[in-house]
């Protein structure tokens, strides 16, 4: 009946990894055990992709585009939008879990707070690959250029990391407001972050105010890194700014989310 042994194990890295894995595994239940739950997350970015292509496709005739295929130009944006949506949804789920008392179960255990957060975030990252792949498949069907293996890998890396960023943002809001009513803020925040970039057109063709915003928005680098293979060649120079931007966002939003996780008892 000694808690000391459990305590010693609880502080071990093995226990932390096991906890992260267990929480990530639980997150898949939402997709696999609730009929139709996966559909909105997959449908929304697909609709946007096809819709934007149908509506704004003629923009490709403007001078300034590096490619002649608008669908190739915007497919990475839709994939990143899907990542943002998935991550924000992880925040909404956390808020719901909080309202129903599930989060208390996690908070009362000796697992470190960062471990609890990491499970939620990694699950979102993994889940984001589903809508991204769906959008890409549809894209290939309507004529998106093959980005090469390197382009594909870079794009998926950006998508997975973007979902983690969105999950940190959503988790931060969920733990701060402790209510699902913060859901619109979670979604809108990520939508703004991904779309206030050269999402629909290259930087030079954006209206001046949006160009200015896009130049300071770190996600611009993420969009451009993800887009590389689809519109041209993949280079390290085109990739590292995206990685730096994502690492920076993860550090900032992750710290804020962790802070909220630690302050749930205030």
């Amino acid at each position: 009946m000694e808690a000391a042994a459990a305590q010693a194990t609880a502080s071990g890295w093995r226990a932390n990894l096991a906890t992260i894995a267990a929480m990530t595994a639980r997150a898949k239940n939402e997709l696999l055990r609730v009929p139709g739950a996966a559909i909105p997350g997959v449908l929304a970015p697909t609709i946007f992709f096809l819709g934007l292509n149908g509506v704004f496709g003629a923009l490709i005739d403007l001078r300034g585009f590096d490619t002649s295929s608008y669908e190739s130009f915007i497919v990475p944006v839709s994939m990143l939008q899907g990542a943002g949506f998935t991550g924000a949804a992880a925040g909404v789920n956390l808020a719901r879990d909080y309202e129903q008392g599930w989060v208390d179960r996690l908070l009362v255990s000796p697992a470190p707070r960062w471990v609890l957060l990491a499970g939620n975030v990694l699950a979102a990252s993994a889940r984001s690959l589903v809508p991204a792949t769906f959008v890409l498949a549809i894209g290939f069907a309507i004529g998106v250029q093959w980005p090469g293996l390197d382009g594909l890998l870079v794009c998926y890396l950006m998508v997975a990391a973007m979902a983690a960023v969105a999950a940190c943002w959503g988790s931060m809001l969920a733990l701060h407001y402790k209510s699902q009513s913060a859901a619109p803020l979670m979604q809108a925040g990520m939508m703004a972050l991904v779309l206030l970039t050269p999402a629909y057109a290259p930087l030079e063709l954006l209206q001046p105010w949006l160009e200015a915003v896009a130049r300071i928005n770190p996600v611009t680098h993420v969009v451009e890194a993800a887009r590389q293979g689809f519109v041209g060649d993949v280079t390290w120079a085109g990739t590292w700014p995206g990685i730096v931007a994502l690492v920076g966002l993860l550090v900032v939003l992750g710290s804020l989310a962790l802070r909220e996780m630690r302050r749930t008892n205030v």
Partner: protein
Amino acid sequence: MSGLGTNARVVRALGARSIRQTFRRPQLISPIIVFPTLLLAIQTGGAGAGINLPGFPPVQSFLQFMLAGSMMQSMMLAGNSGGIAFAVDIEMGFTDRLFASPIPRFAIVLGRLAGTAALGLFASVWFLAIGLIFGAHIEGGIPGALLATFLITASSLAVGGIGAAIALRSGSASVVQGLFPLVLVVLFLSSAFFPQELMIEPAKTIAEYNPFSFIVEGVREPIVSGIDAKQTLEAVAAIVGIILLGLALSASALRHRLRVG
């Protein structure tokens, strides 16, 4: 119980409840107003260079062009939201209370739609104001603004009717909520966000025959050039068509609900 006066009072009472419900929950309004505003900013900023494409209709700015589309988007989200609220009423059993009383059925639905219409009105005023603040001209002046507002408010009644019909048929808020992507699909397959002539197939052809394109054009014309009788009549015809469809679906759904319980 009989008489136009009684019915009117009932509609007013239910309508007031519907409007109060709608505006008392800011977290429900914000997606209807905030998302379309955000999209307006992004799409104007991102695709604004499109007005330089050959064949783009003469407009003062892309913002001026887009206002009608944003109003449409808000209006349709409001219709979806009204349908959800109605479905919640059904799930909660509130509509049973109404059905068991001697209120005419149409008054129940009409009262519900009042909230949606109020939101539609609010949305059109909001976007006209946004447009003016950010430098867009309303070429049709005050009459043009009033016409645009009237068309959007009427459309919200029409779309709300469809939402109510779905709510009555399914009795489930999550079913109505699941139709939200459909709103986006309908809008993308219309001339809400870009001139129909410059869209890519097959969206281009679908948009040509999409009744919502007629409505959007009817709302857009007074803003970008001035009131045009033909365009206005086409918009009104489309709205009437949707209202009739909504009425037919609602009536059938009501019969189904009262039969099934």
